[in-house]
């Protein structure tokens, strides 16, 4: 891809990001109650102190000015103080972020590792038993609420079989010093395979729960686009060249079929990000999603605001990444 095309695409993001910031800003204007009271919580304060705090927080300014202020702060990752933690919001979020990144990446990996091959096999063996099974599983996967699936998995693998832990990221005594914050990486860096396994056992159920709906969707898209690709002349020609069947399927059919799959995968990461809240709640996963849910109930609005903004920006950037990936997969696509 040409660097100028990438730059152009990045510039197109500006209005979207501004719009997102505006929506998040307005969202929090809708909160009931006085932010000053919320900030103070149970602390006692004189009317003068309250007034000073109000000025400090910029609440006496007109709305447009406050929005510009909010933008400036957001650009420097200054989201104010977390009401509950009495610490900068950015710090609190940063602390919880690795857990969520690890969970999301694992879910994505599972979704791709299950969804894409299953879609390919279903298309190649069209109307065979794998295809039928995949269709049923795909439909069930998108029809199942994540929290319910998580509970079923806990009942089966934790309560009934006792194979996997119910919640948390790692057991007592297995902790390792944080480096990246991703436990699967840190345990390996620390050279503790037992801890690695422990972290993996904790990660498995939440990641499967989070990834299954996406796997189902990827499977359906891959199947459809693969069927389409298999009908193309270039597949016939590749076969006529005497290439091995695997090579025809993977290098010729799948490679072209992946274009729509990547688009759907990017859109579906939105489901993954939203699913964070649900899955982290079900499995007591100490990540950003749970932090946000807690923040809602403690009316920790600066935190919720910052997290919603972060999720939205991440989502937009992931979609950009998918667009770039398209140009790599398909040289005809121009950004």
């Amino acid at each position, binding site marked *: 891809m040409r660097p100028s095309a990438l730059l152009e695409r990045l510039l197109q993001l500006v*209005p*979207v*990001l501004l*719009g*997102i910031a*505006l*929506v*998040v800003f307005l*969202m*929090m*204007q*809708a*909160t*009931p109650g006085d932010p000053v009271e919320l900030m103070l919580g149970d602390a006692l304060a004189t009317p003068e102190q309250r007034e000073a705090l109000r000025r400090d927080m910029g609440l006496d300014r007109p709305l447009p000015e406050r929005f510009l202020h909010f933008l400036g702060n957001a650009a420097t990752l200054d989201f104010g103080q977390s009401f509950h933690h009495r610490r900068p919001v950015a710090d609190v979020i940063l602390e919880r972020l690795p857990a969520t990144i690890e969970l999301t990446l694992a879910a994505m990996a599972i979704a791709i590792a299950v969804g894409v091959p299953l879609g390919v096999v279903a298309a190649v063996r069209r109307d065979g038993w794998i295809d039928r099974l995949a269709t049923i599983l795909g*439909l*069930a996967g*998108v*029809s*199942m*609420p*994540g*929290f*319910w699936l998580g*509970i*079923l998995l*806990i*009942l089966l693998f934790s*309560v009934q079989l006792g194979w996997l832990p119910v919640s948390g990221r790692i057991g007592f005594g297995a902790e390792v010093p944080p480096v990246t914050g991703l436990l699967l990486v840190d345990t390996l860096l620390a050279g503790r395979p037992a801890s690695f396994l422990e972290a993996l056992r904790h990660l498995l159920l939440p990641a499967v729960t989070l990834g299954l709906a996406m796997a189902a969707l990827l499977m*359906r898209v891959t199947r*459809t686009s693969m069927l389409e690709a298999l*009908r193309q*002349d270039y597949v*016939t020609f590749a076969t006529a060249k005497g290439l091995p069947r695997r090579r025809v399927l993977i290098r010729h059919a799948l490679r072209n079929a992946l274009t729509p799959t990547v688009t759907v995968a990017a859109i579906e*990461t*939105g*489901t993954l*990000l*939203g*699913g964070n*809240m*649900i899955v982290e*709640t*079900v499995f007591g996963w100490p990540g950003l999603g749970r932090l*946000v*849910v807690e*923040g*809602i*109930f403690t009316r920790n*609005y600066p935190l*919720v*605001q910052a997290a*919603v903004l972060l*999720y*939205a920006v991440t*989502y*937009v950037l992931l979609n950009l990444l998918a667009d770039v990936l398209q140009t790599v997969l398909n040289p005809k696509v121009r950004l």
Partner: protein
Amino acid sequence: MRAEAVEEGALARPAEAPAAPARSPFAADLRELLANRTAVLSIAIVLAVAAMALFAPWIAPHDPYEANLLRRLQPPVWLEGGEWAHPLGCDQLGRDILSRIVFGARVSMTIGLLVVAIAAVIGTTLGLLAGYLRGFVDVLIGRIVDTLLGFPYLIFAIGLMAAMGPGLANIVLALVLKEWVLTCRVARAETLAAREMDYVEAARALGASPARIMLGEILPNILSPVLVVATFRMATIVILEASLSFLGLGVQPPVPSWGSMVADGRAFLLDAWWVATLPGVAIFVLVLAINLASQGLRDVFDPRLKA
């Protein structure tokens, strides 16, 4: 080369169907739909859930709010300690789970239908305006659409619910504010295609006003894809409502909602698995039925969208 085999198939077609007696296209569509057994069954399930919601007080065997701590966590009838009076057992307050599931259908159906309907009206209107008028209106609506598409759905709804507080009206508002975008995109694309059609050109040449063309000529022709999308979306809305309720951001207790029933049951997974899982079955069945039904409707009413 491949075209040749296809052509030969195409040649075969005229001979295949004997001339059908003249009848309205709708009757033909209906007949085709009724031939699809899965679709008929799933539509029946959706209608049954709707009826359950509508007639909940007559169907539910008990008052869904009536607590009785003597029956706390009573198992369903097929387990030891269960009884026919409470076929699906009781929850942590001794309330009848079946009755709560029956009443819970009200929340799911109300929100599902309301959100889809309101979003369809808003989305179609704005999509029609953007696609037909183009220019500034299109750009403005496009900007709003792009912005809203930048939010993951649940995050957007959670952010709004956090700000506005829980409650049925707020859920509907939070979901509609995002949902209309999808309808709008479909409606706009369909309008762009329709405005180039001869019948629209003809109406314009005859001096019809833009409003008349949009409502009289274009709207009827974009309606079926819009409706097909709307039925599909209802499945997602039901899951989203359940998810919000599960997080405690939905309808407030003690009103029974399937999502919050699952959440309540989580604390008793070890001793009473049925409290958390059975309401989930209701969600799953309803969503699956909506998905299958809309697939059937799509195949009949909008074959272009067929995967």
